[in-house]
């Protein structure tokens, strides 16, 4: 799904990111602000915990009966005059979308912000066929103009500040005035002038999907800027790409998620634009509607009874905003469309442990993500579950080197020591004796081998002369 194979491991990528003072400052400020705002709007609802539980329980049911709901959705969308396409993977999805655009002879399309199309690298695939897909979400446009990668689910350009955006617009947009300031209003106006022409001239629009109602065939996109609604209403042809898990059984179920999502993501009581459409209607909006249902690894995730809760995700990004790791490394270190805690569980399951095996370890298991998740995905539980898979995968795929990796040997040795009281007590005595070359002036300031990471910034107290159990035995 991503070019994560070429991407360095998380610890390596994080080291670079942590040294970027501009990034640290931008992200620290942005996540602190949104965290505080979220806490306020969530505290306004007395039934927040019940809403979370409803959101979780509904998703659990959806995931369990996904096949039925998908067939229901297909029938409802078809009945309403839309066309359903099934895509096994990224290539198939990109081919379907490209063929529809080509059939209308378009070489320029407008796009609403969509993580799913980022996941499958739709823009790149279309460009190979000579089709330019223009991002219309302001932050996503900034990413596209600077040839960058999104670093946040909701705020893709969270790592950039106003001055960086001003400089980018002056350099890349002919609509930008020479004396453009970094005033947000002026920046937005410049983007608006640039986008207006595209909205009016494009024959085809592309969107993602937040929710699709199986019962009615209604598709929904929620957003803050209104550009999404332009993409889904102005062009003659609309193509929406959705992951198969983005389904809800009935219209009424939207009530739960349309409360949970805006408060969790943008800290708004209600999102500014909620677009809902059902098939096509003569003389109103696009006259041709295509809904592409994308698997791309999701049914494999479904088969994992612990990991499948990751499919509950409604892409609110609350877990990113509270994550102490994400706040410091930013999204690029994860090397995936889905960064932060949710990315650390979703990416390895979608693209495999060979590509993303370091991500389940990119967490201190502090649990802040689980605490805020509006659909109660137990991210720490899935992280540990995936760590078990990484350990097993390395044992099987790593050959002899995998079986005798230093970490594995250390863990196995320690497990054997802890399983036998005499060995354990002997190890305590050995530790006390063996540490003497390391202890200087009552503390250890340098540790050898893989433990050097600890002592690069942290002293260690020496093992004291008497263990607790020795004291206890002496006492009684």
């Amino acid at each position, binding site marked *: 799904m991503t070019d994560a194979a070429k991407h360095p491991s998380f610890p390596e990528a994080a080291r670079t990111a942590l040294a970027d003072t501009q990034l640290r400052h931008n992200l620290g400020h942005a996540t602190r602000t949104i965290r505080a705002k979220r806490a306020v709007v969530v505290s306004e609802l007395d039934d927040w915990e019940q809403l979370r539980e409803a959101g979780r329980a509904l998703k659990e049911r959806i995931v369990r009966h996904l096949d039925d709901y998908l067939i229901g959705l297909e029938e409802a969308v078809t009945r309403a005059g839309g066309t359903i396409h099934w895509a096994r993977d990224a290539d198939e999805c990109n081919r379907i979308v490209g063929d529809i655009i080509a059939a209308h002879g378009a070489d320029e399309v407008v796009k609403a912000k969509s993580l799913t199309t980022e996941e499958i690298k739709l823009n790149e695939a279309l460009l190979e066929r000579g089709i330019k897909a223009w991002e219309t979400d302001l932050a996503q446009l900034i990413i596209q103009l600077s040839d960058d990668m999104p670093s946040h689910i909701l705020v893709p350009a969270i790592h950039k500040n106003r001055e960086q955006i001003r400089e980018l617009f002056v350099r890349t947009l002919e609509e930008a005035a020479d004396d453009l300031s970094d005033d947000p209003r002026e920046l937005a106006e410049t983007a608006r002038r640039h986008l207006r022409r595209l909205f009016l001239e494009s024959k085809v629009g592309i969107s993602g999907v937040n929710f699709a109602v199986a019962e009615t065939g209604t598709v929904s996109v929620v957003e803050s800027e209104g550009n999404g609604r332009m993409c889904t209403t102005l062009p003659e042809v609309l193509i929406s790409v959705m992951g198969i898990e983005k389904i809800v059984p009935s219209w009424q179920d939207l009530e739960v998620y349309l409360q949970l999502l805006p408060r969790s993501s943008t800290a708004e009581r209600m999102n500014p634009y909620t677009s809902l459409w059902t098939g096509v209607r003569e003389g109103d909006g696009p006259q041709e509607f295509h809904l592409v249902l994308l698997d791309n690894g999701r049914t494999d995730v479904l088969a994992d009874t612990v990991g499948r809760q990751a499919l509950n995700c409604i892409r609110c990004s609350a877990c990113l905003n509270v994550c102490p790791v994400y706040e410091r490394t930013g999204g690029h270190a994860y090397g995936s469309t889905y960064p932060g805690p949710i990315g650390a569980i979703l990416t390895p399951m979608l693209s495999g442990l060979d590509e993303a095996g370091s991500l389940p370890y990119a*967490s201190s298991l502090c*649990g802040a993500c689980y605490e805020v998740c509006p659909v109660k995905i137990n991210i720490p539980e899935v992280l540990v579950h995936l760590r078990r898979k990484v350990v097993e995968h390395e044992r099987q795929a790593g050959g002899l080197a995998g079986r005798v990796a230093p970490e594995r040997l250390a863990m196995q040795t320690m497990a054997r020591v802890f399983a036998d009281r005499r060995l354990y007590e002997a190890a305590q005595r050995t530790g006390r004796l063996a540490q003497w070359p390391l202890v200087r002036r009552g503390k250890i300031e340098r540790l050898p081998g893989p433990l050097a990471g600890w002592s690069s910034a942290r002293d260690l107290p020496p093992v004291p002369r008497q263990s607790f*159990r020795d004291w206890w035995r002496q006492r009684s």
Partner: protein
Amino acid sequence: MRASLFITCFNDTMFPRTGQAVVEILERLGVEVDFPLEQTCCGQMHFNTGYAKETIPLVRRFVRAFSDSEVVVSPSASCVAMVRDHYGQVAELSGDASLAREVESLTPRVLELTELLVDELGVEDVGAFFPRRVTYHPTCHGLRMLKLGDRPLRLLRAVRGIEVLELEEATECCGFGGTFAVKNADTSIAMLTDKVRTILDTGAEVCVAADNSCLMHIGGALSRQRAGVRAMHLAEILAQTEPAPGAGSTA
């Protein structure tokens, strides 16, 4: 009441004074303390790093060591969370139904120190005296897995002579995370640096927590930076009492 002390391998080996402090507090409150010598490690590090199979014998050993205990008490929130939240999973993984039953019957009796003091014994004032400025860091597993809430703070505030200073962004992780501190050392250090900054901002001379693993992490940085602030387990503060009148001047 009779309580069995689950010291944890880490405290047993590295921080015996915390265990001694727990014994002192409990005996002062009239609790009879025993220490099953067969106990070793709860297996948290193995489990959280992905070595669940290696955890199975440790769960077996724990259950055997404490099967007769009325109450098990431990001065480590993360080890208690391991037992209470994950032992069931490990037992299930082992496929041993009798182990699963034993785990189910034992784990509700395993308590973190402040739970035992506040909930079971119903005390907040344990008769401690500690005339120092301190700040309290709620560790993640105590906060979010055990949901200790303000129990540790209530105990701290009842200490005579103490001044408890509020820590900014207190609920943010210190960056320890077990093997995370080594596997992702750079990120861990970045988190730790911010934690240390907020601790120093309080002007406290002692950083208190209810888990020595996080304290070793925080204390390791305070020591490296020659910050003049020390890390101290809550139990060691609660164990300190006022010197008897006429027993000489106070420090």
